[in-house]
């Protein structure tokens, strides 16, 4: 039914292309992207399923709101679909959608700060001030919940780099690619963010 498939020369070109690509590292998303471009909805759905957790996770870390994160993730996938022809198949598909997501989140955050200036601050009061085991001062004793809460009080930039590196286990190279800066910058940013978190997690030291 599809006229585009009645194309022997195109198939040959494709076969040659895949032969030449054999030595390159496997690109698991490539077949689905090509099928989705031709209008196969199940291929695009497979792509969405494979990256939805990373995309939604990033949006949630940045926005601190489940409703907004879900909304932005939807929008990001829609834009990915609309711009699928611009996507460079040699680059990781998940990072591409995450970059779209990130831009949407940053736009939203910019608009948000224009509307209300300091509504996120009360979060700091919610934090437990280390009632558990002061004498040990140990981060290891802290509940996972409070680590999440402490992360929630960091700046967007700090949260972002920590979440990408530790939660999503991205390499500094991948993060640099996503954020558009040098890998060395990521190491330094990671260090500062982690130090801020360490200070938040460690109850005030008795002097």
């Amino acid at each position, binding site marked *: 039914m599809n006229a*585009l498939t009645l*194309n*022997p*020369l*195109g198939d*040959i*070109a*494709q076969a040659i292309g895949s032969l030449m690509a054999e030595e390159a590292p496997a690109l698991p998303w490539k077949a689905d992207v*090509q099928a*989705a*471009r*031709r*209008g196969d*909805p199940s291929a*695009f*759905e497979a792509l*969405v*399923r494979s990256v*939805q*957790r*990373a*995309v*939604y*996770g990033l949006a*949630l870390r940045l926005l601190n709101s*489940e409703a907004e994160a*879900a909304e932005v*993730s*939807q929008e990001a*996938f*829609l834009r990915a*679909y*609309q*711009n*699928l*022809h*611009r996507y460079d198949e040699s680059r990781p598909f998940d990072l591409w959608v995450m970059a779209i997501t990130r831009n949407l989140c940053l736009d939203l955050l910019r608009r948000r700060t224009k509307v209300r200036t300091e509504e996120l601050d009360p979060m700091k009061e919610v934090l437990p001030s280390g009632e558990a085991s002061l004498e040990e001062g*140990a*981060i*290891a004793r*802290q509940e*996972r919940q409070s*680590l*999440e809460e402490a*992360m929630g009080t960091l700046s967007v930039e700090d949260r972002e780099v*920590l*979440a990408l590196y*530790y*939660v*999503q*286990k991205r390499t500094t190279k991948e993060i640099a690619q996503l954020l558009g800066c040098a890998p060395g910058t990521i*190491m*330094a940013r990671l*260090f500062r963010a*982690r*130090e801020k*978190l*360490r200070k938040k*997690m*460690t109850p005030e030291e008795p002097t």
Partner: protein
Amino acid sequence: MTSIQCPDLEVLFTELEAGEGASLEHAASCPLCSAILEEHRQLEKDLYRLADPLPPPTLVANVMARVATEPTPLRRELWAGLSILVASLGVGLGLLISNDQALSRLGTALAALFTDGKVLIQGLASGASAIWNTAAGPVAALLVVLLIVSLSGLKRLVGNGPHPSEA
């Protein structure tokens, strides 16, 4: 006591990442630095244990519902590319048919190209890539035909066209 020689934390952690370095060697024998490294190790362990929350179960269905109302990505590009190709083909054929007025027409075409050349080139590029992705064979044949037609047209234009200074 040892704190005077203690390295900058950032240097220490950079070396920790690299797996070697003078600061790391120092830390091995310095109680202050090894305590910091231990604290760091614990924090990292906890951080690594964090997981991304699961997206709402409706996310995929919602995305696909919105995608269903969109045109096929490739077809969208194909139409844009085809219309531009047909338009440029028309201009080219027009140039060939009306030979005596060819140069003045070329002038207006060039002027138009200068005004919205960027848009045209962008459109052409994405359209061409879309066409190439779907139908590399026919496109190659079409390009060859187009090249021959243009070359013969150019030959005729040079052969009996009006002198440039008269235009």
